C-alpha cells in the first residue's frame, strides 16, 4: 500500500531501494550514509526489500560487487559518503565506461582533512567527469522520488545514476514522505537488457583491449547517452507529475517568469533560498529561484531559456574547485557562453563543511551581487 511515512532522508532512500525492487545491495558503512544501509539491511531482514545484501570490507569492494552484479543483470544499489566515494573513484569510471545501470546514493560529506562529517558537495562534484548521472535532492519526498527515478533511468540509458542528498540537513531529518506502492512504479522500472549483460549461453570477455579509434567512439557514445538523458529525465518527470502530482525535472524554477534577478542553488540550500525569494518578492523586489536538480547531464539549453531574460544571476555554491571557483558558478557561466545579451553571473561560496546557509547569508549574496561588478572568481561568504 502506498501511504505517508515519517522518514529521514536516509530512510527514504532505503524505502525507495526496496520499492524499486533492488536485487543486489553492497555497501560499506560511513557517516552520514550508514543509516541508509542499516535501514536497507532491516528491510531485507523483514523481506520488505528482496535484495541480496553483500557486506564487504571497503567502498572499492562495494562498488566492485555492484559492478559484477549489474553486469549479470541484477538491479543494483550502493550508498556512500565523502571519503568512501573517493575510494570508489577508480570504479566510478569503470561503472560508467562499462555502461552499467547502478544506482548510488551519496550523502554529501566534506572531504578530510580536517575531519568533518557535515555537508558539502566537494565529494560528489569530484566525480563530475566519471560519466555518472548526478541528481541533487532538496527534501525527503524528492529523495524518495529521485531514487525511484534513478532506478527507472539507469536501465533505459545504460548509465549509472548518483542521487545526492545533504548530510544531516536531509539525511537525518525526518519528514512525512509519500512512499509509493511497488505496483505504482513497477512499470516505470524496466529490466536491463543491454546486449553486453552477462549471458551464460554466450560467454564473452568484457572490457578487453580497444584501439584508440574505437575507444574514442565508445566515449562519444557515452557522451551521447548523457544528451539522451536530458530528455529522459524530463519525460520521467512528466510521467511522475501525471501519476503522483509532484516533482521537478532537470530544473525547478520558482518565480522566474518576470524575475530580474535569479538565484541559482542546489540541495537543501534551495529551500532557504526559496524563503528568501518569497520574502523579497513580498517587499516588491523581483527575484526568482532556479534549483539545479540535474547536474550531470548539465541542463544547458533549459538553463539558457530560463536565465536569458534576467538582468543578473547569482549562484550559490556549497563547494569549491580550488584554483578556479564554485563549480555551479563555472557551469552556469559556461551554459550562458555565447548567448547574446546574457546576464552577468555572480558566484558565492557558502556552507562548506556543513556551515549554515541562512536567509541572511543569501540576502548578503544578493546585495553584494547588486552592488559589485561581476568577477570570474567566487566570493566567499565567511560571516
Amino acid at each position: 500500500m502506498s501511504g505517508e511515512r515519517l522518514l529521514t532522508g536516509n530512510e527514504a532512500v532505503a524505502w525507495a531501494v526496496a520499492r524499486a525492487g533492488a536485487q543486489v545491495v553492497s555497501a560499506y558503512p560511513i557517516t552520514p550514509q550508514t543509516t541508509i544501509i542499516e535501514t536497507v539491511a532491516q528491510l531485507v531482514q523483514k523481506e520488505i526489500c528482496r535484495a541480496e545484501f553483500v557486506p564487504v570490507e571497503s567502498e572499492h569492494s562495494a562498488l566492485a560487487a555492484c559492478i559484477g552484479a549489474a553486469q549479470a543483470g541484477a538491479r543494483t544499489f550502493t550508498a556512500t559518503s565523502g571519503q568512501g566515494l573517493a575510494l570508489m573513484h577508480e570504479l566510478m569510471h569503470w561503472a560508467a565506461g562499462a555502461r552499467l545501470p547502478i544506482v548510488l546514493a551519496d550523502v554529501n560529506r566534506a572531504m578530510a582533512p580536517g575531519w568533518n562529517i557535515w555537508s558539502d558537495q566537494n565529494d560528489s562534484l569530484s566525480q563530475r567527469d566519471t560519466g555518472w548521472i548526478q541528481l541533487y535532492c532538496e527534501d525527503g519526498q524528492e529523495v524518495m522520488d529521485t531514487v525511484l527515478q534513478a532506478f527507472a533511468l539507469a536501465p533505459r540509458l545504460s548509465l549509472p545514476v548518483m542521487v545526492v542528498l545533504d548530510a544531516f540537513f536531509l539525511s537525518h531529518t525526518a519528514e512525512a514522505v509519500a512512499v509509493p506502492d511497488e505496483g505504482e512504479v513497477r512499470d516505470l522500472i524496466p529490466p536491463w537488457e543491454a546486449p553486453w549483460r552477462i549471458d551464460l549461453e554466450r560467454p564473452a570477455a568484457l572490457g578487453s583491449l580497444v584501439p584508440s579509434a574505437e575507444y574514442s567512439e565508445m566515449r562519444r557514445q557515452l557522451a551521447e547517452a548523457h544528451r539522451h538523458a536530458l530528455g529522459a529525465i524530463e519525460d520521467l518527470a512528466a510521467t511522475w507529475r501525471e501519476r503522483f502530482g509532484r516533482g521537478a525535472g532537470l530544473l525547478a524554477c520558482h518565480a522566474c517568469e518576470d524575475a530580474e534577478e535569479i538565484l541559482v542553488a542546489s540541495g537543501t540550500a534551495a529551500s532557504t533560498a526559496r524563503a528568501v525569494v518569497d520574502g523579497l518578492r513580498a517587499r516588491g523586489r523581483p527575484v526568482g529561484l532556479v534549483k539545479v536538480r540535474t547536474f550531470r547531464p548539465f541542463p544547458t539549453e533549459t538553463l539558457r531559456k530560463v536565465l536569458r531574460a534576467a538582468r543578473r544571476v547569482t549562484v550559490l555554491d556549497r563547494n569549491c574547485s580550488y584554483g578556479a571557483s564554485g563549480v555551479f558558478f563555472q557551469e552556469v557561466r559556461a551554459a550562458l557562453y555565447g548567448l547574446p545579451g546574457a546576464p552577468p553571473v555572480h558566484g558565492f561560496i557558502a556552507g562548506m563543511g556543513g556551515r549554515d546557509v541562512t536567509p541572511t547569508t543569501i540576502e548578503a549574496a544578493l546585495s553584494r551581487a547588486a552592488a559589485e561588478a561581476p568577477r570570474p572568481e567566487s566570493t566567499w561568504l565567511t560571516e
Partner: protein
Amino acid sequence: MKRLPDGRIEFESAAEVPPVARSFGSTAWNRTGDWRSREPVFRDLTPPCAAACPAGQDVVDQLRLVAQGRLREAGEVILSANPFPAVTGRVCPHPCQGTCNRGHLDGALDVPGVERALGDALLAERVELVPAAGGGGRVAVVGAGPAGLTAAHYLALSGHAVTLYAREDRPGGLLSTGIPPYRLPRAVLEAEVERALRPGVRFQGGRALGRDLDLESLRREFDAVLLALGRHRARRLGIPREDAPGVVDGLALLTALHRGEPAPPGEQVVVVGGGNTALDCARSLLRLGRRVTVAYRRGREDMPAFGDEVAEALEEGVALEVWLLPVAVRLLDGRASSVQFVRARPGDRDASGRPRPVPIPGSECLLLADLVVAAAGEGLDPTGVPPELLRDGAVLGSGAVLSAGDCSGGGGTVAHAIGEGRRAAAELTARLGGRSPTVDLLSARGARGEVAGFDRMRPAYFLPAPPRSRSRADAAERRHDQREVRAGFDAAEAIAEAARCLACGTCTGCDNCYQFCPDRAVVRGAPGGYAFDPSRCKGCGVCVEECPRGAIGLRELGGPS
C-alpha cells in the same frame, strides 16, 4: 564489420562500434606466462603438530582419515608410526595439541582424544599391519618398555627374527610398572602389547642385563643388539637417613603396586618430588586411603609432571607444598616420622630455564610423615653395560649395538621412546635387509621440513567450531578406586573433533587456488593435487595468498626452489 584472419575485428564505420568492448573469441592467445618473474610452488609444509610429535606421526593425515570415517586407513597411517595409539592417546602430554594452530582461533584440537578413540577402535576391530617377508636378521632387543617393544614390533614386521628380553616377567616396562591403571587401563595396555608382539616377537621375561644376560654373548648370538633399558634407578635425595625404614623409592613403590604387592605401611605420606612418578605415587596411595602431601622444591609451574596430572591430583585431594627443599628425614623409634625442609625462594634460572631454588635461612619446617616416598627422578642403571658404551649417564650405540629410549637420553616421554624405537628398527632394517613398514610419512607425501605456523594460515576461510570437552570421573568417587579418570570420545565425537583439523600446510584439494587464479593457470589433477600452466601463470601470487593452509609457496625465477 570485417573479421581479419588473425581474429581481430575491423569496423567499417563508427556506427558499427558497440558501446562497450566484448570479446567472444578465446583469450588463449594471450600468453601471460611470458610476464612471469615468480611462480607458485605447490608443496606441503610440515604441520606444527607433526613437527612437535616425538613419535613422528603424520597427525594431519590420521585426523583426515578419522574425519572421513576411514578407520582402517587411519589405522594403517598411525600404526606405521606408533604401535600404541590407545596408550599414547591416554598418557602422552600431547605437544601436538600445544602447537595446534587452531589454538589461535577457537581452541586447539583434542588430538589425544581422537587418538585414544582411534586406538581403542583399532583394538576392537583388530586392525594391524601385515608382516612383510624379506628381512633375515637376528636381533636381540633388551628392555620391553615402549622403545624396546616398538623396535621389536617393527623389526618383526620386516621379517627379522627378534628376541625381546625384559627384567620383568611381562612386557610393558614403564607402561605397566610406572603408569597406574586409572591413567592407563590394564586391558588397553595388554591388548596393544599383545598386538605389538604378534608379528612373531619372541619374548623372554625375567632376564635382566648384567644378571641373566651379558652383552658379549648377545653380540655373538645375534646380528644386532638394541639396548632399550629405560631409566629406573632412583635418584637419591642426598639427605640424612633417606635409607631409613619408612622411606621408599617412588618407582619401586609403583612397581610393587603393579605386581599386586601390599603398599608399605603409613597413613600420613609425604612424597618428595614433582615429576610424574611423584604424582603417580601420590594418587596411587590416595586411592589406598592414605593422606598424601607432595613436596616440591620449585614452583607449581616448574613441576616436570604433566599439568593435567597435577590438576587432577589436587582435585582428588592430594596436598601440594612448593618451594620446599628436603633437609633430613627424622625418625621416631627407628622409623621415619617426619621430613625436615627448608623453605626456598626462586633464584637465577638454570639450564632448564626454571628458577633455581635458593634456601631461605632460618625457615626450617617439618612435615609429619610415617611414610616418605622419594621421587626425585630416575637415572640409568648401567648394570651390564660396558663402560665404553656409557657417556654422561646415557647408553651410546656402537657398531652392532644400538640404543633407544630413555636409556639413550631421549626426551623422556612414551612418545619419544616410541619414536626412537621406530627409528632404531628402521636403521637396523636398512643394515640387515628387508622392507621397513615405517616411513617418514611427511616426506613420503612430499612435505617440506618448514613448519606451517599460524602466519601461513588464512583463518577467514575456516568456520568456527569450538572444541568439545571430555569430562573426568567425579573426583570424590574416583579417589577410591582405579577407574579411568578421563572420559573418551565416542565414535561420532571423535569424527567431529577430527573434522576440526585445519590441515595446516597440507593441500586438501579445496580448489581455492584454481578458483582464484585470474589467468586460469592453475591445473587440477596434477600429481600431488595442482600444478600451474607456465604459458599462463604470470606469477601474481594470488593462489599463494588465498591458499587457506599455506600449502603453496612462491619462488623467484632463477632463485631457489
